[in-house]
Structures are given as C-alpha cells and as structure tokens.
C-alpha cells in the first residue's frame, strides 16, 4: 500500500512542529526520515501512524484519508514500533506479541488457532521462539525492540512505522533490527539517526529540519556533503563504499 502525507501541519500548543510536509512511500519500499533532534521526525511518524490528527493536510493510505478508516481497520493495516517501550506490568514475551492480535478480535471473541499461528510466525521471524515465556523486564534493550517488532508483525500490517527503533542499541543489534525489517519487504517508514544505516537500508530518504521537509529522494541524491553541512552542521566526506556499494559517510572531526 502507498502511504502519503499531503502538506501535513501539526502544532504542539502554538509551536509549529511539523510544517507542511509532503512525503510518500511506495508499496514494499522503505522511507527513511532523518534530521537533527527536534526536527519533527517523531511527530511526523505519529501523524503518519494516525496517532495524532494533523491540524492541516491529510495522511493518505492508498489515496484514502486515514481519518476515514475505523480504528481497527487502521490498526490492521498500520503497525507502529515506538522508540522506547516501557511497562510496569509483569508480562512475558508471548503476552506482548499476542497484543498484536488486538485489532483483529472483537471484545469477547476467543483466541483462535489462526491467531496462534500468526504469533508463532512473528516469534520465528525475530528469532525469539525460545524466549516466549521470559519476562519483559528481564530482556535487554535489543531483545525488547525485537519483541515489539514481533508484536507489530502479529498485527499482520501492510505498513510498518518505526520511530528510531535502533536508538540505545549497540551496533550489532541496530543492524539486526534493520535487516529484519528489510527482509519483511512491506511498506516501511523509519525515523533513523545514523546516516550510514539510513544510506544502507532505505530506498528513499526524507530530510527534515525545523519541521519542514528539506529534500526527499534516493540516498545517493540526498546524502550530499552540502546537505549534511546545511542541515546537520557537520563537515562530512561522502563516498561509495567498496564493501556494500552503498554510500559511506565519514564525519570530519
């Protein structure tokens, strides 16, 4: 499915956080959102996920306004993984992944074998089948993100939205998570800090600064030394990696 934001604007109080941004992501592709802290990435993510309603503009899923979708209808199509998931509840990995089936069940409908299969499949994909009975609070940061990803997969979404899913993870876990997402080949929007990871894993990149869209396009066109200097205020050297053929960005310190 195609997900698109059409000139969306969002305010926190009177402060404009997202200012007339238009981006779109084609079926099966991955759109990366990059930009300095406070550039409006997380807010745009929330608008795209339908968690906040834009003050102006629309978010469209296959040319249909998401405000016109029912709550369940939307949650069956769009799944979100937050930056940080915290809970005090003493839940197990399996409990969390099962939450993903929530939009597919009515208030009192019983748990089915089909639900079991989908949850099992999600656990297999993130490699946590043998951890299903482990308690959430005993998991490491990387494992928690994988559990949340499995929960999102259990929603059987057509669009996956991730808000800095690799924050606070060590490099191996960052790559693990992004590889997993890459292998899913469903429409994905991901806010991401690391420009090299963005270059490696995204089909297109949208650059945000102070709530506005600076530019949007394939990594090779977007990640230029000039853009990095203008938006992030750092000098960088951009080259093509001899190892993976993607862009490699070195910061000159």
């Amino acid at each position, binding site marked *: 499915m195609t997900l698109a934001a059409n000139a969306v604007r969002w305010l926190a109080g009177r402060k404009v956080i997202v200012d007339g941004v238009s981006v779109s992501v084609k079926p099966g592709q991955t759109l990366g959102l990059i930009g300095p802290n406070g550039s409006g990435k997380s807010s745009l993510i*929330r608008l795209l*996920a*339908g*968690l906040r309603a834009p003050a102006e503009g629309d978010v469209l899923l296959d040319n249909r306004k998401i405000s016109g979708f029912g*709550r*369940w*209808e*939307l*949650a*069956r199509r*769009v*799944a*979100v993984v*937050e930056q940080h*998931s*915290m*809970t*005090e*509840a*003493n*839940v197990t990995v399996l*409990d*969390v992944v099962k*939450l*993903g089936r*929530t*939009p597919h*069940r009515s*208030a*009192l409908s019983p*748990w089915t*074998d089909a639900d*079991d299969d989908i949850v099992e499949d999600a656990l297999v994909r993130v490699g946590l089948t043998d951890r299903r009975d482990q308690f959430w*609070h005993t998991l490491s940061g990387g494992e928690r993100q994988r559990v*949340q990803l499995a929960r999102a997969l259990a*929603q059987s979404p057509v669009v996956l939205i991730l808000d800095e899913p690799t924050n606070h993870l060590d490099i191996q876990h960052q790559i693990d998570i992004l590889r997993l997402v890459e292998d899913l080949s469903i429409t994905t929007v991901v806010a991401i800090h690391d420009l090299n990871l963005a270059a490696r894993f995204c089909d297109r990149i949208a650059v945000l600064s102070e709530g506005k869209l600076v530019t949007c396009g394939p990594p090779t066109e977007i990640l230029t030394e000039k853009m990095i200097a203008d938006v992030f205020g750092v000098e960088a050297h951009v080259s093509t990696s001899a190892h993976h053929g993607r862009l490699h960005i070195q910061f000159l310190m």
Partner: protein
Amino acid sequence: MTPSRIRLWAAGTAGVLIVLAALLVAITAGVAIGEMAIPMKTTVAAVTNRIGLTAIPVPRIQEAVIWDYRLSRSLVAAFCGAGLALSGAILQSLLRNPLAEPYVLGISAGASTGAVSIMLLGFGAGAISLSAGAFAGALLAFAFVVMLASGRQTADRTILAGVAASQLFNALTSYIVSTSANAEQARSVMFWLLGSFAGVRWPDVALSASVVSVGLVVCIWHSRALDAFTFGEDAARSLGIAVGRVRVVLLLVTALMTATMVSMVGAIGFVGLVIPHAARFIVGPGHMRLLPACALVGALFMVVADIVSRIIIAPQVLPIGVVTALVGVPFFSVILYRARRVA
C-alpha cells in the same frame, strides 16, 4: 482447542469454584460469628428457608439477626471488597502505576468530603443523595488528580497528585465536620470515615450488588483494551483502541464504584492496592482473568477482614479501615521497595 488451552481453562474454572466456595464459607462464618453466636447449620437453614428450599424451624430472634443484620452486612462487605479491588486493578492498568488505587489517589477522600457535605450540610437526604454527593466528590477528586498529573504522566506525578488530593479533601472534610457538626455527629462521622459495616441493610446490598455487577461487566468488556494499555496510550491507540473513550468510561465506572462504597461504609483503604497485586500474582497480568479474580479475592478478603474486625476486640468492633490498613501498609511497603529496585 489445543490441550494446553483446555488445561488452562480447566485450571481457571477450578480456581473460580474454589474461591467461590471459600467465599460462601466466609460469608456463612461471618453470619455465624458475633455477640450472639449462631451455629453455621442454623445460618444455612435460615437462608434456605427464605429462598423456600427448606422449612427447618429456626428461632425467630436468630433468624432476625441472621437475615436483618449479619447476612446483609457480610454481603455488602463482599460486594464492597469486589468493587474496591476492581477499581484498584483498573486504575493501576489505566494509569500504568502499581501504586494507584482509589484511596491512595484521594478519590475515597473526595467521596468522603462529598458524603459528609450531604450528611452535615444537609443538601437533600437519604441514601441516594448521599451516594450522589459521594460520587460528585469522587469525580472532583479524580478531576483534580488528572489535572495535576497531566502532561507527562509518570508514576511519581500521579501519586504526588493523589497525595495532594487526599490532603485537600481530608482537610475539607475535617473543616466541614469541625464547623458544622455537634460532638455526637462528629464522633459518628469520624467512625464512619474509618469504615464500618455496621448499619448496612438490604437496600445497601441491592445498591452495592447492582453497581459492582454493572462495573464488573463493563470492566471485563474492556479487558482487551486494558491489556493494550500495557505499553501506554499511544501503543493502545496504535492497536486500534479508542483510548479517550475507554479512559473516560473506565474512570467513571471506577469513580462510581468507589463513591458507592464510600457512601455506604466509609473510606476503606488499601484493599484496592493489595488485592490486584495478589490476584496478578495468582493469574498473571491478562485482564480477562485478572478482573474476575480481583472481584472474587477482594470479596473474600473483605468478608474475612470484617470478621476479624468484629472478633479482635470483641465485644467492640474495630473500624474495618484499621484492619485493611494493618494488612495493606506492609504490603504497600513491599511494592514500593520492589518498584525502587526495578526502576
């Protein structure tokens, strides 16, 4: 169904039956124990006689004591425990705070202020207006806490707001009592504030039974939504939950249950805190099982607490709030200590 799910279901049913049986025994014991000791056999006979199952001769005075005083008292205790435990479980899940419960959040204090205003300042009269006053007070306290704790709703802020609400409404209650009550009224109000099942009658049973039954059904209906709140409001919203509506409905139900109980038996603390944690320990965090478990265990706990309050310094009766607090505070401390370690 897979075998493991059948086993789980069977275990659940067995658990419910065991607690129900224990509850029946406790209620019977509650009726039997008192200044006039009545054999359990007589108690059962009096009840089956009334329902029309048997016609066993029972001394009239015993029957009157059983039917008009003790049975209604035990039943109100049961519904009250169920309602408070349920309210605690809902608040803990909605506010994502292990220390949340009506008493700690000042909702009971607000309900007390409302009820005392009705009693002493004399707006209207009768049980219904007392409940209405308690309900208004509970809502006011709720609004106060939500307002103070709005924005980043961290565990600390909610509890701090609750402490402020408790202080404010307890001060208001004391102010109203000191300015408007005579000595005798003041004594009875203070006794009532600590919680007492003395003086509850069949109309109270009907009121508490209907409020708790409706509350239980509404809460169970929302149990999936409550599960979805595990990781907060945005996570719930992204799972298709109507977060705003669920919050309002469940907070209103909680306020209604708390207010009904406070207007009948005073502010009883810590039941709403202790029972949900105990129940979670037994059946886990899933609300479909947790909420009925809370209701049953809460009912059982309160009936037993009522019995304890009557025998510990017999023939005098200890305020029920004293008993629940003596059990609840150590429990509260343990939770606080563990919360510190996890954070």
